[in-house]
């Protein structure tokens, strides 16, 4: 680094006071030129925002809204062929147009970034400590190596890595996802930057780890006093964390304002739809979610008017004339002015007053005057009450009963002479049953054994230990043909709609395949496929197309149609909505509820998202380290969780309500879950248990030596595996 840049940097540092923005983005556009005759991709179209010191700005939007691209442009991390216009000023200095060398001097020192996927974010061949020290050294090569190393250890300690000095020499693959994200945050903090951009920093992590990381980001903000730009699709994460929110849709900012203004008085139908579409962990089941119909437009083929107009329930002809500008609520031009204006005129945003509530909707004034909420403008589908729920649970027939199910994987070593060196206790003795017309949700963090349980049940073979009974038939004694016939009654919907459909089969072939396999006559097949397509909300003309032509939500509907083809009575849903955007997710959740009511289906619903589970499930089973720690009626479990782990899980979920979220205190669990190959003795949860520390010594002794059994508590449909369960008010 030359001396004049040091001086310039110092001047820039001292030049700003409390309210001058640290980072100011104005009218930023990013276009990826189309190659081979494809149209250009307009990823970002005129976005502006600014953040001041110590302030947190949340940028919210669904996939493809341009939120990540705009921040990558600010960091100078986009590929060379991207066309970037507008202005990005850091301490008043223009960043766009700087060459890579000049930009590299800013990156990681004045402005730094935390990325989404910590698993692939660190170079696999260097130790984490060296990579951290590099962040220090690259900006000041004169720092002695030992000093950089000491700083790296200090940073590791700061972000909560235990034994930082010895962990310095660890390689990334020796760290868990949460620990790697801590290292990424340490890297971003290394040079006391003035701006930290966090691009979905917790999306790939489990909820208890997410709570740890959000805590850590609060620490980072306090330690560095940096301005933080928090990019996310999760409206819960930003609610309690940010000061201001910017909502993006199809490459443009469509609404911005203070966090309370946006959450409690949104004046843009898209934001209202997003907020309405989120299932709430803190609210009891209250009918259908608010789905936003349709799909976001493709960034290479945008409509002329308001980009949200095709999906908007209150769109008017004027909305399609030209794109509305981002203006203060109520100061939008009148409809007559819009009709007189040139069609397709570029919008002129109102840039003054960073904190003001602005919205890019012609009818924002109207929405404000009438105090409309999502429920007023979005049609909410009616979901019929399921007939089965009339009968008491105990009288309804059993669809699935699992008793003492065990799945252990041997851990072997050696290539030529394999020998067993341990056991992974993937599923370690679980019991539950599902009655007709009911939904049981299996929840837990990754690695807790949810998917292994599913695979054991779907296999329809004799388990290693325990029993699986499907519709009253023990799977242990099934013959080949019995097993084949039983499969008709139990079907599965997979998590990832992108990879679970054969890309070379048409939708018709995909849906009719189970029918053909089970020998349905050809004539009936066609009629049945069309019926199924209509049932899941697709058109019959879709039958001839290939999966690649559909959006994620539509593909998941195809997957559901395939699962329903054989009229099963039990549907196994493996994270069916976790890969979908919120506005799409609501539609699929509604569909599942509607199908259950109309067809009397039972669901085994596997999910890690406890908000969705509260919305769809009748009963819930919480899993930890291959065991069920708490099971019972959803209402009971959510309102008075008895197991410390359930309490921690529920507490860790951020609520999309800024006021409530700020008032909550989260239970933040320590460290990562133990490996299922080496579970602790006694109670599996005791190593992370927040209650363990408050117990007396003989009580602790009991946790360490005795394994708690699932026993009923609270005189209702609720059972818990804890020696010291607790009655407690929920969230």
């Amino acid at each position, binding site marked *: 680094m030359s001396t004049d840049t040091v001086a310039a940097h110092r001047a820039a540092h001292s030049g700003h006071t409390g309210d001058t923005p640290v980072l100011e983005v104005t009218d930023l556009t990013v276009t990826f030129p189309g190659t081979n005759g494809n149209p250009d991709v307009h990823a970002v179209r005129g976005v502006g925002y600014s953040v001041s010191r110590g302030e947190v700005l949340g940028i919210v939007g669904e996939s493809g809204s341009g939120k990540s691209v705009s921040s990558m442009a600010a*960091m100078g*991390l986009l590929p060379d062929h991207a066309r970037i216009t507008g202005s990005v000023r850091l301490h008043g200095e223009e960043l766009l147009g700087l060459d*890579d*060398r000049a930009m*590299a*001097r*800013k*990156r*990681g*020192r004045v402005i*730094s*970034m935390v*990325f989404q*996927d910590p698993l*692939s*974010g*660190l*170079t*696999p*061949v*260097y*130790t984490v400590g060296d*990579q951290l020290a*590099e*962040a220090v050294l*690259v*900006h000041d090569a004169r720092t002695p190596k030992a000093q950089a190393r000491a700083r790296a250890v200090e940073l590791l300690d700061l972000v909560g890595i235990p034994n930082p000095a010895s962990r310095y020499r660890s*390689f990334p*693959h020796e760290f868990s996802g949460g620990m790697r994200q801590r290292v*990424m945050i340490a*890297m*971003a903090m*290394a*040079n006391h930057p003035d701006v930290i951009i966090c691009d979905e920093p917790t999306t790939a992590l489990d909820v208890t780890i997410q709570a740890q990381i959000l805590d850590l980001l609060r620490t980072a903000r306090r330690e560095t006093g940096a301005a933080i730009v928090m990019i996310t699709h999760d409206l819960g994460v930003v609610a309690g964390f940010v000061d201001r929110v910017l909502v993006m849709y199809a490459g443009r900012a469509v609404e911005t304002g203070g966090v309370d203004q946006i959450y409690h008085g949104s004046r843009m139908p898209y934001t209202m739809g997003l907020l309405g579409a989120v299932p709430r962990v803190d609210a009891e089941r209250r009918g259908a979610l608010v789905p936003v119909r349709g799909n976001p437009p493709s960034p290479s083929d945008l409509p002329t008017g308001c980009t949200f107009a095709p999906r908007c329930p209150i769109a008017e002809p004027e909305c399609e004339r030209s794109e509305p500008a981002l203006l203060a609520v109520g100061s939008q031009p009148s409809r007559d002015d819009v009709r007189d204006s040139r069609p397709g005129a570029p919008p002129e945003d109102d840039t003054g007053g960073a904190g003001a509530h602005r919205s890019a909707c012609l009818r924002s004034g109207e929405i404000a005057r009438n105090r409309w909420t999502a429920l007023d403008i979005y049609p909410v589908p009616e979901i019929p009450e399921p007939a089965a729920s009339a009968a008491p649970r105990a009288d309804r027939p059993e669809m699935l009963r699992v008793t003492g199910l065990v799945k252990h994987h041997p851990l072997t070593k050696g290539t*030529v002479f394999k020998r067993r060196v341990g056991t992974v206790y993937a599923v370690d003795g679980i019991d539950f049953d599902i009655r007709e017309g009911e939904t049981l949700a299996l929840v837990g963090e990754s690695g807790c054994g949810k998917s292994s349980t599913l695979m054991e049940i779907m296999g329809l073979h004799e388990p290693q230990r325990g029993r699986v009974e499907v519709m009253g038939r023990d799977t242990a004694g099934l013959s080949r043909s019995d097993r084949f016939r039983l499969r008709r009654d139990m079907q599965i919907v997979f998590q990832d709609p992108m990879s679970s459909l054969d890309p070379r089969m048409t939708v018709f072939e995909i849906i009719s395949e189970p029918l053909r396999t089970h020998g349905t006559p050809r004539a009936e097949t066609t009629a049945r496929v069309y019926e199924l397509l209509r049932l899941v909300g697709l058109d019959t003309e879709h039958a001839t197309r290939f999966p690649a032509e559909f959006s994620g939500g539509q593909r998941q509907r195809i997957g559901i149609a395939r699962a329903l083809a054989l009229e099963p009575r039990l549907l196994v849903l493996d994270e069916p909505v976790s890969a979908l955007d919120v506005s799409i997710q609501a539609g699929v959740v509604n569909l599942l509820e509607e199908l259950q009511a109309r067809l009397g289906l039972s669901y085994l619903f596997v999910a890690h998202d406890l908000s969705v589970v509260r919305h769809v499930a009748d009963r819930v089973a919480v899993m930890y380290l291959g065991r069920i720690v708490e099971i019972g009626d959803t209402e009971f479990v959510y309102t008075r969780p008895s197991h410390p782990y359930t309490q921690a899980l529920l507490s860790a979920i951020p609520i999309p309500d800024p006021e409530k979220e700020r008032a909550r205190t989260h239970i933040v669990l320590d460290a990562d879950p133990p490996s299922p190959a080496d579970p602790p003795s006694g109670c599996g949860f005791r190593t992370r248990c927040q209650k363990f520390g408050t117990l007396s010594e003989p009580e602790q002794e009991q946790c360490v030596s005795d394994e708690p059994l699932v026993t009923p508590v609270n005189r209702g449909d609720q059972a818990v595996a804890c020696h010291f369960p607790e009655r407690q008010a929920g969230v």
Partner: protein
Amino acid sequence: MGKFLARRMLNYVVLVFIATSFAYVLAATHLDPRAYFEQMQPPPSPEAVNDQLDSLNLNDETPIAERYATWMSGVLTGDFGRNIQGGDVASQMWMKAGVTLRLITVATLLGSAVGIAVGAYAAVRQYRGFDKAATAASFVVLSIPTVVIAIVVQVIASSVNDGLGTQLLRYSGEYSAGFDGTWWELLLNRLHHAMLPTFVLAVALFAAFARYQRNMMLDVLGADFVRTAMAKGLTRRQALFKHALRTALIPTITYFTFTFGALVAGATFTEKIYGWHGMGAWLIDSIFRHDVHVVAAVSWFMAITIMAASFLSDLLYAWLDPRVRV
């Protein structure tokens, strides 16, 4: 790790033993040293031929098992028998091995270094001019057999020499016969002769390495860790060099060791065409001379080099990639 390597080593010893035994049995049963002696002018008497064959342990009237036992007991003490003219095979083998190793060490180092550099840079400039040119050049070289390249280069060299009227490019022999001078003049003379065959071998290797490295590099170019490195403050060039290339080199380096091992036998054509008396050329010549012991010895040497290469690549992989270390 040590135990793992020891077990690997034992595996290799067994494999080398089996490969060498097969090579000996195959050569001893299919080559016909008797014919070699009977063709001599003037034709020796049958008794003389038998005596000669017996003394060399090549007599086809002795049972193959007995001949094999005699030969193998020699090999275990480092004696690879005598060649058909009565010379010591072991000492000749080390000399020939020296010639071949001199030729291929420089060629593989040069070819792979240039290939890696070109391939990595082509990946960075994917679909641009440099990438297209590098791809075209690689495919042209890959689609021409080495023997054709060797001859074409020789033809070009001879016409260049004719055009200039001096011996600018040497294309025959390892050194000028009868040349005498100080040690550095001798060294220069050898280098002068080594230029063209090294070039021919390096060109073919360059093409393979360029393609391989380009693919490896493309895999990591878009990797998140490269972006992380840039976000720390590295320039694109630094991030690509320090993080992307370092990671993409791992598979290439193990590929390199294998190429080196395979080239001991693979340089045959180049050696023959440029008049270098290396391992490959020796093998071909001895097959024509029905020289059983040389064929078996060359096979043993090749087995050793291949095994050594794969052992080395195991070691290198563990050293370069912390993820496979346990």
